[in-house]
């Protein structure tokens, strides 16, 4: 009987829980950013491409959502939807959506005035074709960088929600809920907090490193 990372207050193996907790955290990161992308990008493209009243309306709603801090909005939504990992993912996804709406809108407005868009229009391409074939590939780098950095934020948000009891429900493991259980035993059983904390730290650091690297690599103004 060797428990490499020790055991918790109910005698469960911490290493096994950290390993299984990776599922909850990574799934929450990927799925919530997937929700934010699939909702935010089409709305942002519509807003940036159409302009006028539609743009004004979408932009004001986006501004209103961005006025609430990301984590507060996610906690409020998760509390409203009810505590479960799926609802936490939806709540985090909705909270991250306005960032993608605004980013997409700005990028589309930049690209829209390029000569090749005029060229596409002059040969009779439909609006849908211009948006999907000519604009979308050109705004991809910015979206990719933002998505990578958002995964890191979403993983922290999932851990926060689970810490508060709004994410993964016991007895199923999640790094956030493990930290919550560990806080009562910090002085007597600190290993209970160290390992899930280290796991969150490493994953979030990795996504931020990758996001920063992608941003530098995809920046057309940066020559290195």
């Amino acid at each position, binding site marked *: 009987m060797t*428990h490499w990372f020790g*055991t918790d207050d109910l*005698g*469960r*193996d911490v*290493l096994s829980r950290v390993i299984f907790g990776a599922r909850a955290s990574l799934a929450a990161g990927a799925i919530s950013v997937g929700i934010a992308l699939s909702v935010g990008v089409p709305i942002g493209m519509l807003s940036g491409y159409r302009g006028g009243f539609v743009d004004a309306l979408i932009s004001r709603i986006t501004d209103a959502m961005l006025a609430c801090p990301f984590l507060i909005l996610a906690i409020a939504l998760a509390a409203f939807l009810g505590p479960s990992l799926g609802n936490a993912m939806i709540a985090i996804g909705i909270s991250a959506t306005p960032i993608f709406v605004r980013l997409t809108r700005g990028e589309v407005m930049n690209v829209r005035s390029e000569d090749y868009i005029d060229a596409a229009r002059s040969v009779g391409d439909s609006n849908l074709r211009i948006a999907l074939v000519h604009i979308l590939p050109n705004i991809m780098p910015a979206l990719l960088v933002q998505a990578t950095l958002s995964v890191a934020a979403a993983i922290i948000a999932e851990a926060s929600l689970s810490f508060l009891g709004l994410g993964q429900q016991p007895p199923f493991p999640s790094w956030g809920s493990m930290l919550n259980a560990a806080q009562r035993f910090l002085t007597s059983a600190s290993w209970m907090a160290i390992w899930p904390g280290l796991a969150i730290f490493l994953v979030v650091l990795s996504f931020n490193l*990758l996001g*920063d690297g*992608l941003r530098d690599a*995809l920046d057309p103004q940066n020559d290195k």
Partner: protein
Amino acid sequence: MAETAMTAASASRSLAPLERPLQRALRRVVKRKGAMIGLGLIIAFILLAIGAPLLAPYDPIATSWTMVRKPR
């Protein structure tokens, strides 16, 4: 000697725009040490999550009253 260097330089200059944007992005991101360390760790954690039932030494939700808060 100088001539070959010059033709090589002009050849690379004329070839550079032919590189596809995706290839250019990949080549540039692979050079960044931090990004590659991050990517490696992310892949490791994804493999850990996928292989959790095989890798975890114990059932993560099985409790044991003789093992409460025992280090190692």
